[in-house]
């Protein structure tokens, strides 16, 4: 009896894997946005430039979660 049936679970273990892969980027994007809001509150006149940097930071961080989403396509047996 393997581990998943012993725990009484059925389904695809990859779902749990993607859940784990989404944790890090979730925290990361949260940090990026919260710091940007803080900075805009301190210096509202810089809002435009800070937002551009925020989108860049989000794009880089989010890529990790999206790589997690792409792994089943890349490593499909």
């Amino acid at each position: 009896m393997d581990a998943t049936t012993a725990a009484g679970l059925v389904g695809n273990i990859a779902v749990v894997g993607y859940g784990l892969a989404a944790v890090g980027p979730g925290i990361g994007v949260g940090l990026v946005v919260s710091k940007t809001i803080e900075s805009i509150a301190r210096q509202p006149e810089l809002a435009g430039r800070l937002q551009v940097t925020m989108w860049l930071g989000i794009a880089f961080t989010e890529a990790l979660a999206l790589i997690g989403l792409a792994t089943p396509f890349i490593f499909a047996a």
Partner: protein
Amino acid sequence: MLIRLIVVATLLVLFTLVSGAFDKSLKTKNFVPSRFQLMGEIALNFVRTNIAHDQLGKKDGDRFLPLLTTIFFIVVGMNITGIIPGFNVAGTSLIGLPIVLALAAYVTFIYAGMKKHGLKFFSNALFPAGVPLPFYILVTPIEFLSTFILRPVTLALRLTMNMIAGHLLLVLCFSATHFFLFESEGLFKAFGAGTFLFGFAFTLFEMLVAFLQAYVFTLLTTVYIQLSLADEH
């Protein structure tokens, strides 16, 4: 995909009309733009001032503007078919098109660096200045991986996976609506209204994502070009 052909044809027609409007206003010296011309001006100016001039400056920005404009409007057009009823699938949700766009960006930022710095572009990128000598064993492979492999790969993957995830969310919401309304019994039918509302909300969200991804793709291309143009200091 037939959808891509339709999108390209629509973009061609739209831009022919917009440039026709520009020509007409130049010829008649009537510089008060019509409503249609104004829309074209706003869309084109967004890429020009907010992306190209902001990141690259006036001179280099105008140099790479044709590529950036092309990428932005192709991505917007192909993304927006994801929420148009009847099309329902984004042209960018198959990896082929994003790979082509990412390769265009890849070739461009290497070209920009080679043109400005010659072969020193590669040594600048692989051996960043100010690092103690032994650390190059660690730094150089990481820099190679992140600059020359991960940049185009993440550029293509980010766009495709965003579109796939959005499509899956919409499918989930609307197929749940179908299930609750037509196949479940009694009070469960009320859930259908909720899932339909969620589906509608996610459709609006996908419209935002379509523009945002086009913006991010173009912005990242611009930043990569800017990084390879930057002087070592």
